[in-house]
Structures are given as C-alpha cells and as structure tokens.
C-alpha cells in the first residue's frame, strides 16, 4: 500500500458536526444523469465495444456493400431514385451494430453481478430495475451511434435514399434491434453469470445474424434454410427495418416474429430478474 495519508484532518473536526439522522430518499428510484453519464463513458472507453459495435458494421459495409453501389435493389433503376443493394446492406450492418450494443447491456449485467457490483449497489437507494434501465439507455445510445456511423459511411460513399427511407429504416432498425436484443442480452446475463455471458451472446448474435439474413440474403438460401430463418429472432426485425427500401410493405409474419421473440425474451428476463434480486 502506498497510501498512508494521515486522517487527522477528519479527527480534527470530528466533534463539531454530528451525524444527522434526518434523511431524504432520492427521487426516481435513484435514476440520475451522473450515473447514466458514467455508464456511457464506460461504453465509449471500451475498445472492444467500439470495434465490435461501431467499427465492425462500418467496415463490413465498406467491404460488402460498397462494390454493390450500382446494383439496383428493386425494379426501380438507381438513376430514377431506386435504392441500391448497398443501401440494403447498410441497413443490415447498422442493425448488427445496434444488436451488438444492445446485447452487451445484458452481458454487462451478468458480469457485474458475478463481480459483486450488483450486491454493492444493493447498499445504495438505487432500485435494481432503475439500474437495468440506466444501462439500457446507455446501450441504446451506443446502438444509435452504430446506426448513425454506418449510415454516415453509406451517405459519404454515395448511398442515396429518400428522407423517409433513411429515417424509417434507421429508426425501426435501431429500436427493434435495441428492444429485442437488450432483452435477449439481459436474459443471458441473468442466466449465465460472469464473462461467459459476453462470449455466449456474441456467438449467438453472429449465428442469429447469419440465420436472419444480415450477412447473406435469406432469399438466396436453400429452401429448408429459408424456412428455419423465418423463425429466428433477427429475421422479423431486419425484414421490417428494410421494408422501406424494398417497398414490399409489412408482412404480418415479420411482425409476429418480432413480437413473439420480444415477448419470449422479456418474459424470460422478468423471470430471471425476479429470481436474481431475490437471492442477490
């Protein structure tokens, strides 16, 4: 130990101010911007997070999407304002970044519980649910950053979409990926404590992203794979997010897929959260 600073200053004024027992309880279950700010800072300082949630989708877009900038996605030629395949890949990659960020929220809860930090927080007025919400907001903010970065890369490299297409696909991709995959991440985080949670979710995301057609169009898969893909959690939300581009309109099955997985993950998380706070 290097610190041997004397504590005489504390002793010096000790007798003058008594410990006061009249106290207030913080509002909003302890939610505050200082905590949120530190959470955000932690995310942005983590090099691995930045590489996998922001750099990776941008680079993937540049590698896969950019060469397809001249290839029209629909029957409408690009010259007439039709979207390119590059735009389609841009939205897919943006969603991948948002999914990564969202699942890390859950994985972080698992790691912090294993490290005993959750227990430490139980010694403060912070409501356990508010703790999770704060982390979710930070995770969603980082997800938005991933979407914006990928879209910016797209815009710079010549992807042209209408304002409605930019906003429609960006918002739906961000929010849907955020909602479904924050829930999945939390579920894994509560079920699998420690660093394993992060590894399991990362692996799950890559697998689900492939199955859901983020890296490889579902329509180009063999028939049986297409059938399987339609039941996986990335499929529904990514089809919805890309609908503004393809002009196919919303398929009810996509919506059912997205809602069903959201319900499954949220219900699982609520169950795991209750079990967790009971034993802390």
């Amino acid at each position: 130990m290097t610190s041997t600073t004397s504590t005489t200053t504390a002793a010096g004024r000790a007798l003058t101010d008594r410990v006061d027992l009249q106290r207030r309880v913080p509002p909003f279950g302890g939610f505050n911007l200082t905590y949120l700010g530190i959470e955000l800072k932690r995310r942005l300082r983590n090099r691995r997070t930045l590489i996998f949630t922001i750099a990776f989708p941008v680079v993937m877009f540049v590698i896969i999407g950019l060469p397809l900038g001249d290839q029209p996605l629909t029957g409408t030629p690009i010259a007439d304002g039709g979207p390119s395949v590059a735009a389609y890949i841009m939205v897919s990659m943006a969603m991948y970044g948002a999914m990564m960020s969202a699942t890390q929220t859950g994985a972080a809860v698992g790691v912090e519980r294993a490290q005993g930090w959750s227990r430490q927080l139980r010694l403060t007025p912070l409501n356990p649910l508010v703790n999770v919400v704060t982390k979710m907001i930070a995770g969603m903010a980082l997800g938005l950053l991933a979407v914006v970065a990928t879209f910016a890369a797209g815009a710079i490299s010549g992807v042209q979409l209408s304002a409605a297409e930019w906003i429609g696909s960006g918002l739906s991709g961000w929010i849907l990926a955020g909602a479904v995959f924050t829930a999945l991440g939390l579920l894994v985080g509560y079920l699998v404590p420690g660093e394993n949670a992060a590894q399991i979710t990362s692996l799950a995301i890559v697998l689900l992203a492939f199955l859901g057609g983020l890296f490889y169009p579902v329509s180009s898969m063999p028939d049986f794979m297409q059938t399987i893909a339609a039941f996986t959690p990335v499929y529904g939300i990514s089809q919805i997010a890309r609908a503004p581009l393809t002009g196919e309109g919303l398929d009810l099955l996509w919506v059912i897929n997205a809602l069903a997985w959201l319900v499954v993950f949220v219900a699982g998380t609520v169950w795991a959260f209750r079990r967790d706070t009971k034993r802390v």
Partner: protein
Amino acid sequence: METSALPRSTPPASPGARPAVAATGLVKSFGAVRAVDGVDLTVAQGEIVAFLGPNGAGKTSTIDMLLGLATPDSGSVQVFGESPRAAIAHGLVSAVLQTGGLLKDVTVRETLDLTASLFADTRPVDEVLQRAGIAEIAERRVGLCSGGQQQRLRFAMALLSDPGLLILDEPTTGMDVEGRRSFWSAIRADAARGRTVLFATHYLEEADEYADRIVLMSRGRIVADGTTTEIKNLVSGRIVHATLPGADPVALAAQLGVDEVQVQGERITIGTKDSDAVARYLLTQTPARDVEITPQNLESVFLALTSDGASA
C-alpha cells in the same frame, strides 16, 4: 454453553433515541444448516461493537439480514426503527462487505461520483477520498488498485452517505499494519461524531483495541456479549493444557474442582484459578505430559467459548 452468555441490558442512550440495531429472534437456514439460530441483538446509537466468531459462526449471515441482503426465516430486524431496506434508501446505514465488488474499468473518483449520485444527500467526494486516505489515487482505474486500496475505496463509498450506522465485515483484510492503524483512527474519529459502528473481524486484537463491546458468535448463536473487560472476566485465572490420553472430562472436572474440562483428541484444556494445583495433580496423579500454562486473554476466551468442547 450454559455459563457463557452474559446477560446484557441495552446500554444507556439519550432518551427517545431509537436503537441503531434492534434484532429479535433472527433465524436463517441454508438447506439443513442453521446459519443463524435465534440471534437477539440491540445496538445503541454511538456504540462500537465488534462481532467476533470463527468462520461459519453466522456473522456474515447476520450482517446480511441487518442490511436487507437476506431475509430472515423468522425474527425481525429494525435499523433506526425502519426496515433495513428503508434505512438504506434513507442513507442511514452503509457497509463495507467482503463480497462487495467494484467496477474495474472506472477510476476511484468515478466510483465515488457514481455512488454519490445514487443518494439524496452525501458528503463531498473529495472529503471521503481524504478520510479514506485515497485522495492521491483518485484518478487511478480501480482494476489497477491494490487489494488494500480497493478496501479503502469501499470504505470511502460507505462514508459517502454519512450513515448513522456503519457495518464492516472484516474491514482490514488486505491492509498492512500501517494501513490498518490509519483505518481505525479514521473509524474512531467517525464514532466521535455519533456514528454507530458494527464490525466483524477475526483479528482479536482489533476487537480488543477498538470496540466498546464484543459480541461473540458461535454456531449461529450469540455466546457472549459484553465489554472487552467483561468478556475477559468470563474466564478468569489461567489455562492449563496437557496431553492426557483417555481423559474423562467430567471426572477430571469434579476431581479438580473446575467448571469444565475440554478435550480435543488427547489434548485437554482446563481453565482454572489455581493453575499450580491443577498442574501438580496432572503431573503427579495422572500420566499427563506436555503440560503448559498460559494466561487468559481474549483469544483463550474466544477459543473457550467457541470451540467444540464448549458445548460438550
């Protein structure tokens, strides 16, 4: 254990003052194991209480219930007249726990900023950094701090809310001698401000030196409760140890006129006011060998009250 529990009335406090801790009939089982088996504990405001006991005595389980981290199977706990959870929400009680983790990727100061943001009223972060003796490492990442520095950080976090009751579970683990000394001088300065302190320790000298009162736990029960002097007086005289194969503790106790003879394997331990007579008897009338006579200290009281022989 019939002779060991000292009756203790609640120490005098200012009229109308709620006790810092009021626990009655606490029971907590884990599976078939009764970790806490009927604990009654009242701590008046301003007391410094040492919670002593061997591993598995139920200290940590009792502390968990005082903090609302565990729910008692039966019995009740109140902290300043409130439920433990309400007392924590008001910032009335804080703790330094062995199990409490820290975020490795944030700095010491950020940890304190974060913790402070969760309470309605706190002391300034710079003040607690100073008092915990970690002001000069404020900008260091927690993961790079030594075990002792991390323990001081936990202490600083506990000081933030300026709690009326501070609970410390083995607080000086990982600290060197100098660190321990300055830690306790900070605690004493604090207690002078009216802070109640309850600490669990396995360092007997810490209990002896820094506590007003010692609560001794063994196998889920409080086996002794009193001032350090009272506890030492529980077992007066000296202790005679000897190796005596096949000793009959009951017959031996009757023969020697002592309260109790403890037997562990071939080793017997006898607490007595007349150690000369006991030693003479053992050496002349029995095949006893390796006779040793030691003075009573807190450690021997501790051993006498918590060893397996005490309940035999």
